[in-house]
Every structure is written in C-alpha cells, then in structure tokens.
C-alpha cells in the first residue's frame, strides 16, 4: 500500500497577535508547525502502513523552511518526503495549490490512497483535499472519521456528517480528508528523529512535475485577497434601570418578555 500525505506548515497560532492596522497576523517571531489537523492524516497513514505494510510519502508545498515539517512527519514514522518549493509556486490559492499537489502526486505515481487533514488552521478553507481529488479525478471522502476496511481495491469508510455518520465504499485509489476522531497522533521518538535526519528530501519545481506555469502561483490563482478585515460584532443592548420594588418587577417582566420573544427560554 502506497499512501501520499500532503501537509502544510502553518504559523503556531495559540499566542497569535493581530496587527490592528492591517488586520493581518504578526508573523514575526511566530514559530512554524505542521498544521495540527494534518497530524491526524499522518498518524492514520502510518497506522495503515504498520498494519498492512507499504510506504507513506509526505509532500508539502512551501518555502525551504517547510523541510522541518516534512522531517517531523518522517520522525513520526513516514518513510519519504518531497518538498515542492519554487518562487513560481508563491501566491498560489487553493485551486493552484491543489493543481500543484495533484501533479506531484501523479509524478510519485502508483499510489493507493491520498490522506489529507480536514483543513489548514491558517487558511481554514478545507478546499485543497477535495481539489486534489478533482484534479486527479478520484473518488473522495471528506470528514472521514474511520477507515472500516480496505481490500480488493476498495475502501470502506465512515464519515462525520451533520447529525450522524455516513458509510461509503470507494474504489482505490481514492482521496480522504480526515477529522480528529480518526486517530491520536503519536509523538516523534529519538529513533524517528535520527532516521529523519538521514532521509534525503528531493525538492521539486514546476518543471519536475510537469505543471503548466499558467496554472500556478499568483498568476494561476483565480481568487485574490482584496481586503482583510475583522468583522464588526454589533451588540444591541438595552439598559433597564431599577430604582425601587415596582420598577424591579417591571424590569423582570421586560427581560422575560424579551427572552420569550427571542425564543431563548
């Protein structure tokens, strides 16, 4: 079984500060980590490999620094990695990113599964997993919470849907995006770290994966970030002043009336 896991390196956002003027994140001094939701995809891929043998290849598009994320995934137990890094990739939106990753996966070839995290914690779109499936024209299960079985070129999965679960059977190769419920990511061990250090990670550019340069980077991205702003939260409050017993009762009535009208009680 050959599994490809596309991951993203994202800023560590638990202590993030926003620039009040530009509305964007202050990236200075912010550490980069593997997108926390990708850890579940990595873990599930490693478990499948441990159970039935094979190979897990982790790929990531990003700056050279993303090598750290790939090495960390290998330390966890992935076998190999590929970094997609080139100036021409810069500025890619989810469409262009999916296109690049799909080309890279095609080049890796001969795979059975692509497992992605649900979404990245920075962009928060959840579009790249389905995008890859669409570029590769493969069956897709999003929000996958369990792999029930894999055999004879088919995979049975359970996916989390509003109000319950849904079970699907997909033909392999297929693309899954997974939710947290699917696994508990392991911690990298010393042995894993030492092994990762020795693994050579090839760096691929547009030519290596045969992608049309018109379809990548800022040029190939149909979406544009025109403006970033924090949505204003407006609260309409009404102050009710209580002066004596009588106005207290009136106030209580008023509040009750409001709550009933808004169907809050």
């Amino acid at each position, binding site marked *: 079984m050959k599994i490809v896991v596309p991951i993203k390196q994202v800023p560590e956002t638990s202590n993030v500060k926003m620039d009040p003027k530009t509305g964007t994140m202050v990236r200075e001094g912010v550490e980069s980590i*593997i997108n*926390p939701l990708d850890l579940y995809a990595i873990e599930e891929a490693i478990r499948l490999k441990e159970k039935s043998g094979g190979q897990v290849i982790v790929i990531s598009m990003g700056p050279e620094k993303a090598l750290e994320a790939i090495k960390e995934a290998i330390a966890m137990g992935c076998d190999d990695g590929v970094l997609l890094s080139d100036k021409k990739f810069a500025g890619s939106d989810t469409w262009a990113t999916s296109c690049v990753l799909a080309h890279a996966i095609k080049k890796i070839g001969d795979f059975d599964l692509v497992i992605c995290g649900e979404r990245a914690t920075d962009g928060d779109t959840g579009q790249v997993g389905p995008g890859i499936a669409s570029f590769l024209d493969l069956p897709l299960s999003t929000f996958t919470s369990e792999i029930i079985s894999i055999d004879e070129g088919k995979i049975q999965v359970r996916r989390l849907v509003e109000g319950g679960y849904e079970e699907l059977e997909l033909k392999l190769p297929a693309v899954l995006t997974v939710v947290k419920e699917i696994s508990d990511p392991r*911690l990298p061990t*010393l042995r894993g*770290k030492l092994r990762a250090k020795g693994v050579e990670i090839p760096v691929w550019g547009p030519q290596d994966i045969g992608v049309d340069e018109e379809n990548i980077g800022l040029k190939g991205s149909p979406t544009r970030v025109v403006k970033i702003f924090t949505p204003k939260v407006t609260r309409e409050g009404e102050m009710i002043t209580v002066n004596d017993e009588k106005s207290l009762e009136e106030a209580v009535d008023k509040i009750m009336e409001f709550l009933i009208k808004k169907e809050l009680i």
Partner: protein
Amino acid sequence: MYNKLTREIVNELIEIVGSSNVIFDNIEALEAYSHDEVAEKSYAHMPEAVVKPSSAEQISKIMRLANKYKIPVTPRGAGSGLSGGAVPVYGGIVMSFEKMNKILEIDKENLVIVVEPGVVTNEINNVVKEYGLFYAGYPMSVETCYIGGNVAENAGGGRAVKYGVTGRYVLGLEVVTPTGEILHLGGKRMKDVTGYDLIHLMVGSEGTLGIFTKIYLKLMPLPQAKVDLLVLFKDIDTAIKIVPKIMTFGRIIPTSIEFMDDLSFKTSCRYLNEKIPFEEAGAMLLIELDGNSKKELEEQYEVIGNLCMENGAIEVYIADNATTSERIWKIRRNIAEAWKQYSPDQSLEDVVVPISEIPKFMEKVREISQKYDVPIPCYGHAGDGNIHATPVRNPKFTMEEWQNILHNKLLPELYRVVIDLGGTISGEHGIGHKRREYMPMAIEPAQIEVMRAIKKALDPNCILNPGKII
C-alpha cells in the same frame, strides 16, 4: 500582645495612603486577603484591614504607625504562595503591593531591570524580550505571582538546574525595615562585598525582616531555541541514575530535569486522555534544553537521548516545536489538577534530598503511603532533588481524621525521612506558618537562636509578619 485596629488608627492609615487604598469593615473584600494557595482552610486568617501603599515613604509611615500602636503588618504579593507567608496569622494589617506594579527602568547596558514588587513575574520577560533579554527566575506560577513574593520566598521552579533560583538574580533592593527605616542595598553592581550581604539576608526572609519597594534584577541573553525530551523508564531507580550522567558524561546542563512517578503521570495522562504508551512505564523524566540554535540543541538531545536509551529507557520522545512541547509539558503541569478529581485536599510539599537519594526517598514514601493508606504522588525537579511529594486525602477519611493523620503522623514522618537522607523540609515554598512547627526537626537550636536574634534586631516589637518561620 498586639492591639486591635481602631477606627482612629484606620483614619491615620487613610491619611497616609488615601481612602481608596484602605479596606476596612468589609468582610467580603477582606476575605480575599485571608489566604494564599494553601488548600486547607485552617491556615487562613482574616486581616482587620488591607492597605495598598504606592511608595517607600508611605510604607515607612505605616510601619512607624504600626510600631506605635503595636499592630502586626503582613506583606502580601499575589497570594500564590504555598506556605502561608502572606496570611495575617495575628490579624492586623495586610499590606498589598497591587498598586506598586511599575517597571521602573530597563538598563540594556548593564543588563539590569528595576521593578516594583507588585510586577507580575512573567511581565518582566514580556518587556525585556524585545531587547533579546530574559529574566531567568521561573516559578511555576509565573503568570500570576509577583516578583516581590518571589524575592521574599526565594522562589525556585523548573529552570533551577541551569539558572538557579531567584536570589541569584537579585542585585539590589530598596527595603523598608520593620521599624520604618528605608535602606538601599546593592544596586547595578555585579560584585559587592562591602559589609554583610544584607540583600541575601532579605531574599527568602518570607516578609519577616523587611518590605521590598524596589528590586534590581540581573538579566541574561534570551536563548533562541529550546527542545524537550520526555523519557519513559521502567522504574524510578533507572530514571534517577541518568540525572548525574547527563552532566558528567553528556557534559550538558539542561534547563530543567523534571521527574514524575507513576502515580503522578498515570493520573495526569489518563486525565488528559494522552495516548503515548505510559501504562508500561514506572517513571518519567522531562528534560528541557535551551540554547542559541536548533542545530546545537539537536546535538545535545541526541547525546542525552542516546544516553537514556543505553541506560534502560523504554522510549525517548523529542519535542522541538510548540505542538509537541506543549503536549509534553501538559502532563507535568496537570498532575495536581488531575489528582483533584480524586480529592481536592492535598498537601503540596517541596522537600529536598540529595539527587542520588531520590530512589531511597521514594521507597520510604511508598512505605508511609501504605502505612496510612494515603496516596502520595511524587513529582518535581529531579535536577536539584526538590520533590513535590503530595499527600492527597483518601476520601475514606473525614476531614478531621485527615488533618490528624497528616499533621501528627504523616508529615513528621515524611520530614524525618528527608532529614535523615541529608535533605530538608522545604526547597522553594518556604516555611511560613504551615511548616513552622517542624522547623526544630530541620534546623539545630543554635541556628534558630541566630535567626531569632536577627529578627529581634530588626523588628524589636515583632510587628512584621509575626508567627512565621521561627
């Protein structure tokens, strides 16, 4: 021997600090100043009034007033102490430093910061970070405690292996003595042997010898990278034997070497729903390294990690990023919280033994635990032998039975063990009134007499924080 506060005296206090800075006659507001973080209610005591001064001059006047009317004064930082240091055992006035929370100077040339006592310790690091500096004192309560309290208790904490404790960084103090004199000790001097070292007499005096109004702290260059190792061992003995090896064979001084026994980490891991294979382990070490580059730390964690694996570790986990590091530290930080599900009544001890005696100490703790049927999870700073042995009330005991067992049997026995192994009863929380009765076990009579003489010389009327230490 002390007088009660009267309305007239309160009016005099108001004249000194203003009416908005005096709390009197308001039980609800005073209650907040009656206890620290010691869980047992029996250690709490209500103050008669709280004053919130904002200068050394005001404090000096208050102390003169207190001496005149024989009213006890108890200084209080953030109230996060664990020995009752800020509790007004004899009532009287609690002096709170919440208004004295200014950073007075950051001297980048001399690597010194001058602060008032009410500054939250973590705040210091937040402001000096942008100059590439840091303050190395690091008690576990760093996000709430005040620096004044840290100095008064000579607070330790997780980084002591490499960086030592608070006292190492105190270069100078402005102090109001119990009789109201204002002293200026030390300053921005790295060396100073001019006369007795009064600074370090004040550091760790638990608010009994003087009130700090200005604190000069030494800063250090901020390390650029850190990495954590979580090491699982089959038993305590194997885990502890590795500690000196890290320094002698590895030639590395980690920032911290935290130790957790199985009672501690198993409860915490289950509480956190942590899925690493902890059930098969009997002890864990959490080792933190800091340095100037990831590359340098990579070499160091390989040395330490390999050393552990060669010496019987079950597994070594490496955390070199925020995700994994947080996950590892969570286990250590949640021990007390996890045990609260079993019982909130815990006596958080901070005994010290020589590092090599930790396994023997643990053996004795197990015996005591079995004898009284009281769980005693042990965790803490293996790198300096400071162990948080924490007796937790077995719910089968009533509060009264628990108090009796704890104070009359369990703690004295625990302390006896510690002292016989060449250790002592408190490494970083202090004596306060919580451990006062046990002082004669730990310290010879002649030493206590010296301490009494010092106290008497500085505070003839025993006004400042009476009922503590001696």
